[in-house]
């Protein structure tokens, strides 16, 4: 059961990710990414992280990606232009990516002592999570909240039309 679910959703993940690369329209890419994210949520669930699974859906799929689609719609972004930029990305970038993937994969596959994940095994409840989060890691949590506040202010400041534009609009 676990294996089947893993295979199915891992396949969804990979398909979504590849589709993200292949699609030329940002909105399709965004939808592919949503597929990746929701599939990942299922994988989290399989790994016993149920709160994270919900958070993944709510935060990533439900908020961040909505923001992305919202921006795509707002800017009415069309298909990608076939621009020719630098060649460095092909010459340098792809070998580098292959190297990274090869290295990481080698290390992962050679690591001994990694166990198996079984169904309904080692589930982390929301209570455990929040106990650690609100006691031991309270300070980082609060710092994160400040970060988000700053991000909100920054976003507002950035997206606000300039004074000149505003007066011109009036």
């Amino acid at each position, binding site marked *: *059961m676990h294996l089947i679910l893993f295979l199915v959703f891992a396949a969804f993940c990979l398909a979504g990710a590849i589709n993200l690369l292949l699609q030329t329209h940002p*909105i*399709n890419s965004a*939808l592919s990414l*949503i597929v990746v994210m*929701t599939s990942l*949520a299922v994988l989290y669930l399989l790994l016993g992280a*149920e*709160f994270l*699974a*919900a*958070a993944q*859906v*709510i935060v990533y*799929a*439900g*908020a961040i990606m*909505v*923001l992305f*689609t*919202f921006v*795509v*719609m*707002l800017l009415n972004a069309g298909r990608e232009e076939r621009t020719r930029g630098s060649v460095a990305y092909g010459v340098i970038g792809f070998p580098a990516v292959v190297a990274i993937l090869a290295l990481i994969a080698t290390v992962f596959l050679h690591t001994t002592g990694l166990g198996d994940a079984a169904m309904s095994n080692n589930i982390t*409840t*929301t209570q455990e999570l929040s106990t650690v989060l609100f006691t031991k890691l309270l300070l980082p949590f609060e710092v994160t909240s400040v970060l988000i506040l700053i991000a909100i202010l920054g976003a507002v400041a950035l997206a606000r039309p300039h004074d000149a534009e505003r007066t011109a609009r009036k």
Partner: protein
Amino acid sequence: MTILQFFLWSLLKIIVVTVVLLLGVAYTVLLERKLVGRIQNRWGPSRVGPFGLLQPLVDGAKSFLKEDIIPTAVYRPLYLLAPIIALSCALISIAVVPFGSPAVEGPGGFHIFQISDVNIGLLVVLGITSIGVYGIALAGWSSNNKYSLLGSLRSSAQLISYELALGLSLVGVVLRAGSLNLRTIVESQARHGLLTWNLFGGFQFVAFFIYLMAAYAETNRSPFDLPEAESELTAGYHTEYSSMKFAMFFMAEYANMIMVGCVATLLFLGGWTSPFGNLIPLPQNIVIQALLPIFWFVLKVFSFLFLYVWVRGTLPRFRYDQLMNFGWRYLMPLAILNIVATSLWLAYK
């Protein structure tokens, strides 16, 4: 219980619940038309069948039989995908809703009145609701129509804004119950019936009020039905949709209403439990023991829907900036205050 049995039972439950839900959706539409008619001093549908009771079926047939028009300028894949996302998201949430007493079990300790009992049921509902945004957003965008686009932009912004207030209003309840499991939440308010409901005994009336407002906005219902404001945007995000696809949006809207009613019932109104608590002892008959909680549940959801329609027939539509102001400036701070007050109270207790 073997895996095969599990699948079969689950399939059966899913089919039954879905059919009931769809029927509920159909008759909610009728209910609304009749009620609004009465509020506006007219009869509403009354010709098809006795008291117009067959009207929903006829409407459905009409939707199916109408020509399916796909405008040339639309972005087809998403144009087709959007109503499916909207409807499926509206229907899926019901999977975690317990609508009957868990005391009644099937063979092998199998819950009959809940498709799936999830630890984080409330979060699942919220998550699926948040995915539902895409149906509307994509519909508006793929239609390639400015009214649709404006409607879906409004809708996206509105949903994101009010989701915050909605989620925060539920935190008070979660704090009281100490769980995200919907069944546990219901059981935490079961002891003395009406008096221990979160709405009354739990002092979560502020939260309930916020939830009510946010829920109306989330379901794009009057007085927050700006995404489909006829006078401004023709029909908003579903301007370009017709026949069956339009019907799917329509059903999604009412399914969402029912879902919101279910959540309200579970979280604030004591779910399937009796409002009289243990004052009226349960009869020993197993059938009555099974059906009575369902009766209470449906009654509560129905009351909620009645409120929906009543508000629709009564209040005028907000302006867009008023809507945003209200959500960000009043509802959200209020929800945060509610969380703080509840936490303090719980800590004091």
